[in-house]
């Protein structure tokens, strides 16, 4: 079948960008990567892109098709051809372009390195054999462990576009992989790394990362897991965590969100005062509910009891998770405390 692509090219030596159209013949099962290979071999050897495994496991070939990041090797071209479309192929977003479809991954790897991307054993002597870990415990990190670090999630991250220093979905999904690994003893000091100005609370929840991820990692969900861990450990220093606290308190007190509490609790009293002119503008439009007479839900006692009940269950789960991994019975390196 014949495939036509428009490719956004960039030549660094001339610092020149241009869009080029290519039409080539390929087999029916061809992927976007196959098409690029045919173009490179038969039409223009200077077309530059990364590739290696061609089976969606190495993460090399991330690029945008019509503005949406995909793995070229996992993108079949037949549906595109059948729909009569001519897609525009461009490099991934949120990363500097080196040449054609190749982006500079160094900022991406720098964020990876910044999240302490290795198991923290807490300096404890491991057992002679393996830690005893239940499959269900490891299943808690299996989703994040699927990540091939391709960058598709980062490409469309709306937060990162507005804040280039945001750690981002890939790095934070990697963080979640350790936060929830029962063998990691990083505890709160690890969580602090993700609690900073460019950490989890920077995420705008646009869900582009979940939408783009070709491996089912669901990075947004992973970011939420880290946020949950930070919140449930009582680390409420960031406005983002305090914002969540208002929702929890509100639903407990009234069943609804107490909107008027959001501003002072999230941004702090000083900043809240600065926001008074803004609040007045909203008040003039009638958008500020009466803080003295909060709107309460009916059957509120059900909700309050529910909150307390679930809270106690969450506590139990947290304690179990923080207990650390299990040593095999009769392990020679067993610590004295567990005797």
């Amino acid at each position: 079948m014949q495939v036509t692509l428009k490719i956004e090219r960039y030549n660094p030596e001339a610092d020149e960008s241009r869009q080029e159209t290519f039409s080539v013949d390929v087999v029916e099962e061809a992927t976007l990567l196959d098409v690029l290979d045919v173009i490179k071999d038969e039409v223009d050897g200077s077309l530059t892109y990364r590739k290696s495994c061609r089976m969606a496991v190495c993460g090399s070939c991330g690029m945008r098709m019509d503005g949406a990041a995909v793995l070229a090797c996992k993108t079949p071209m037949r549906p595109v051809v059948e729909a009569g479309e001519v897609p525009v192929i461009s490099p991934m977003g949120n990363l500097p372009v080196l040449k054609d479809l190749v982006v500079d991954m160094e900022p991406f790897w720098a964020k990876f390195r910044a999240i302490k991307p290795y198991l923290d054993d807490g300096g404890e002597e491991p057992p002679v054999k393996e830690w005893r870990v239940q499959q269900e415990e490891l299943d808690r990190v299996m989703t994040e462990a699927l990540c091939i670090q391709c960058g598709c999630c980062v490409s469309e991250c709306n937060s990162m576009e507005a804040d280039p220093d945001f750690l981002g979905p890939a790095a934070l999904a990697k963080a979640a992989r350790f936060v929830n690994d029962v063998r990691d003893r990083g505890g709160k000091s690890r969580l602090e790394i993700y609690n900073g100005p460019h950490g989890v609370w920077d995420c705008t929840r646009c869900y582009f990362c979940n939408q783009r991820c070709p491996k089912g990692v669901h990075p947004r969900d992973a970011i939420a897991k880290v946020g949950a861990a930070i919140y449930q450990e009582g680390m409420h220093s960031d406005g983002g965590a305090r914002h969540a606290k208002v929702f929890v308190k509100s639903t407990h007190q009234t069943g609804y969100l107490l909107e008027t509490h959001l501003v002072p609790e999230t941004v702090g009293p000083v900043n809240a005062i600065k926001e008074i002119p803004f609040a007045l503008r909203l008040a003039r439009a009638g958008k500020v509910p009466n803080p003295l007479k909060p709107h309460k839900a009916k059957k509120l006692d059900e909700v309050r009891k529910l909150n307390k009940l679930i809270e106690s269950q969450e506590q139990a789960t947290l304690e179990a998770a923080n207990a650390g991994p299990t040593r095999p019975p009769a392990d020679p390196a067993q610590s004295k405390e567990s005797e």
Partner: protein
Amino acid sequence: MKSSYAYYPGCLASLSQKELDTSTRAIADKLGMTLVDIPGFTCCGAGDVHEARPEYYLHLNARILGQAEQLGQDTLMTICNVCTLNLRQANAKLQADPELLRRVNRNLKEVGAASYSGGVDVRHLLWEIAEGDGYEKLKQIAEKPLTGIKIAPFYGCQILRPSRLLGFEDPDRPQSLERIIEACGAEPVDYPSKIKCCGFPIVLARAEVALGELIQPLAEAKEAGADAMVTPCPLCHLSLDAWQGKASREADMEFDLPIFHLAQLVGAAAGLSYDELQFKRHVVKAYPVTDKIYQGV
């Protein structure tokens, strides 16, 4: 379109965005939709409880769905993107895992709340009137077409993504709002960031980042010649409307874009008045556009 729905307005439409609730009830009447109130409904937890206390979020939403089921309704209608994703995600989890559903119901029973059997579907108003008989009904009631008005649609993230949970339309090329704008007689205006984020979830905790996001749809819609914008989400509405002044200062650009709730757009085309649709509750005054609509100015 169903004849009746369990109606879930969510927190904002009940309070600061009251005009959305008012407008929704008014157009439901015209569309022939019966909205059944859920007496004991609470907040869905938004993204915050969803993230910080996932178990609690799951139970809050199971309880809401259980209440809808108790009212004999098989469909719950939302008017907010965040509520939609939250309820649909909880629903999907509960429907897929009988063991989980049993456990959640045990907890609900313990606190005296109604249990849920998994029999409710969650639909946003947008979906109900964008196609099928709902769309036909919309065309019927649009007696006062908004001719000559250019409206830029702003979808908001959580009515599109993740599409495996929402799945109403192509998340990268949605058309539902454009169809509705056309049915209302107005002209839809296209621009790239109509599917991007308004920044609301972090508009307080990360104001600068949120404004960096918010500026994009406002600037692009303005540059594309829009008179106004329309959105199906009250949180996006709050961003685009109440925060428009801040975005304007940040971008050093005048936007002057009135922001319509979806229900207001439909209401105006159906002949409801400025007061009935409570346009005065907007921070960015709607009258430059509503004058055109109501007075043909």
